C-alpha cells in the first residue's frame, strides 16, 4: 500500500503541479489567440447571431482600406522613432554605469523609475508637457526663440511626442538588461584595451557591443513586439473619446492596435474584421522576429 501511494505521488504530482498553469493558459491565452484566426474568416459581429463564412473576405477588405495602410505606416514610424533612440541611449547608459560607482543603487533606481509608472500616467503627464498652449516644452521652445509646435496636429510631431513617451518609459529598463549582460564580459578585456589607449567610446563599440550581441537582439525583438502593439499612448494622447479611437482628428497617429480596437469594440463590434487585423499584426510580429533571428544567425556565422 505504501509503495503504491509513493508511486502515485511521485508519478502524478508533477502533472498536478503544472496543470493549473497549462489549463488556465490554454483556455484564456492560447485558445483566444488561435480562435482569432477562425473568427477572422467570418462575417462575425456582436450584433447579429449569424456568422457567415467569408473566406479571406475580411483580409481583402482590410488590405483595400487606406486607413489600414495609414495605421501601418504610423505604427512603423512610431516604432522606428522610439526603438532606435531607446536602444542607443540604453546602451550608452548601461556602459556608463558599468563601472565602480558611488551610490550605485541610486542610479539604478532612477533608471527603473519611469518603468514603474503606468502607461496611462506617462501619457497624461507627457500630454501636459507637449500641450500646444500651456505645455512646458512649447514654453521652453519659445523662450529659446523657437516657434511653438502643435505637437498633436502634425504627423511627424505627434509621432515624435509618442515616441518620447515610449523612450522615457523603457530606456532605463533596457539599460538594466544591457548592464546585466555587460557585467558578464571579462574585465581583463577592458583593462588591456585601456592599456592600449582605447577610449570609452571605442571600448563600447569594439568590446562591449560584440560581446552582448545576443542580449541586444533579445531587447530589439521585445521592443519591436511592444512597439507594434502600441495602444494607450496614441489613444490617450488624443484625449481619449472619439478622437482617441481614431488616433487624432486626421488619424495622424492611429496605430494598428487602435485600428483593431476601432473596428472590434466601437464600430458595430465587427469581430471578424478586427480579428483579421489582429492576425495580420501577428504575422508582422512573427516576420519581425524572424528577421531578427536571421540577423543573429548571420552574426554568429560571421564570427
Amino acid at each position, binding site marked *: 500500500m505504501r509503495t503504491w501511494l509513493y508511486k502515485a*505521488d*511521485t508519478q502524478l*504530482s*508533477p*502533472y498536478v*503541479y*503544472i496543470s*493549473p*498553469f497549462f489549463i488556465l493558459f490554454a*483556455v*484564456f*491565452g492560447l*485558445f*483566444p*489567440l488561435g*480562435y*482569432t484566426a477562425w*473568427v477572422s474568416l467570418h462575417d462575425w459581429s456582436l450584433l447579429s447571431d449569424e456568422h457567415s463564412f467569408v473566406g479571406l473576405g475580411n483580409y481583402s477588405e482590410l488590405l483595400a482600406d487606406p486607413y489600414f495602410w495609414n495605421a501601418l505606416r504610423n505604427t512603423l514610424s512610431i516604432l522606428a522613432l522610439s526603438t532606435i533612440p531607446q536602444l542607443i541611449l540604453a546602451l550608452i547608459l548601461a556602459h*556608463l554605469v558599468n*563601472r565602480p560607482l558611488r551610490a550605485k543603487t541610486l542610479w539604478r*533606481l*532612477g533608471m*527603473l*523609475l*519611469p518603468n*514603474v*509608472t*503606468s*502607461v*496611462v500616467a506617462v501619457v*497624461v*503627464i507627457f*500630454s*501636459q508637457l507637449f*500641450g500646444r498652449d*500651456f505645455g512646458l516644452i512649447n*514654453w521652453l521652445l519659445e*523662450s529659446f526663440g523657437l516657434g511653438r509646435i502643435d505637437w498633436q496636429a502634425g504627423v511627424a510631431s505627434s509621432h515624435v511626442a509618442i515616441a518620447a513617451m515610449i523612450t*522615457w518609459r523603457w530606456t*532605463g529598463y533596457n539599460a*538594466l538588461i544591457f548592464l*546585466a549582460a555587460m557585467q558578464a564580459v571579462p574585465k581583463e578585456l577592458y583593462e588591456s584595451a585601456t592599456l592600449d589607449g582605447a*577610449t570609452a567610446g571605442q571600448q563600447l563599440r569594439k568590446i562591449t557591443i560584440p560581446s552582448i550581441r545576443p542580449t541586444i537582439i*533579445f531587447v530589439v525583438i521585445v521592443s519591436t*513586439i511592444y512597439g507594434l*502593439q502600441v*495602444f*494607450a499612448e496614441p489613444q490617450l494622447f488624443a484625449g*481619449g*473619446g472619439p478622437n*482617441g479611437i481614431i488616433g487624432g482628428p486626421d488619424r495622424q497617429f492611429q496605430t494598428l*492596435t487602435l485600428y*483593431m*480596437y476601432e473596428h*472590434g469594440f466601437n464600430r458595430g463590434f465587427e*469581430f471578424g474584421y478586427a*480579428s483579421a487585423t*489582429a*492576425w495580420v499584426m*501577428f504575422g508582422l510580429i512573427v516576420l519581425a522576429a524572424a528577421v531578427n533571428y536571421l540577423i543573429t544567425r548571420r552574426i554568429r556565422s560571421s564570427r
Partner: protein
Amino acid sequence: MTRRLVYLTLTGVLMLTAFPLYFSVVVASQDNSALSQVPPPVLPGANLIENIKRVFETVPFDQALLNSVIVSGVNTASVVLFSTLAGFAFAKLKFKGRTALLLTVVGTMMVPMQLGIIPLFMLVTKLEWHDTLLAVTVPALVNAFGVFFMTQYLSEALPTELLEAGRIDGAATHRLFWHVVLPVARPAAAVLGMLTFLNVWNDYLWPLVVLASPENQTVQVALSQLRAGYVQDYSLALTGTMLATLPLLLVFGLLGKQLIGGIMQGAVKG
C-alpha cells in the same frame, strides 16, 4: 571619460527620469487656471487637497483603487503560487513530456496575447463575466514568463540533496513543496510578485474593453476618464495620476533594489 563627467551625465539622466514625475506633483497641486501662466509654475502650489477632493467627486476613484488592489493582489498571489508549483515540477521532478512541455512554455513567452482580445471578449461574455472583476482577474491568473522565471531560479537555487533527504524521511511531494521548496523560492517569489503586481496594476487595454460601469473600473481606466473630456483639466488628471502612482512608488522605494536584482538576473539567464 573623466569620473566627474560620468557623475554629471548620470545626474542629468536622473533628473530627466524624475522630472516628469516631479512636474506632475507640481501640476497636481495647482489650480487649473494657474497652469496657463507664463512662465508656467515650477514649484508645488497649495491646491492639492482641493484637487484630490475633485478627483473623488469626478470618478469613483476610491472604488477604482480598491478594485485594482483586489485584482492585482489576487493575480500576484496566483501567479507566484502557480509559477512556483510548475517551476518546481519542471526544475526538479522527473515526468514524461517534461522537455516538450517546458519548450511550450518558453515558446509562448513572447507570443503577444493582446492579439487574442476578441475571442477573449466573446468567451468572457459567454461566461457572463462581462463588466465584472472576474473578467480581468481570471485571464491573468497565470503567465508563461512566471513559470519560466521560477523554473530557472529553482533549478539553480534548490539543492537536490535537500529534496532527496526529505524523500528518505518519507515526505510526500506536497510536503516537500510547502516545507522545502517555498522557503527556498522566497527571494525569486518576491521579485516575480512585484513584477506581476506592477503589470496588473498598470494594465489598460483589456480592462478598458471589458469593464463598462464606473464602479467596476480599475485605477488605470478611471485615470483615462479624467484625461478625457472637452476641457482639458490637467490639474485634475495629474492629481489622479499621482494618486494612482504613489502606492507603486512606495513599494518601489522599499523593494526596488531586489526588483532591479531580479530583472538583471532574469536577463542574463533569459
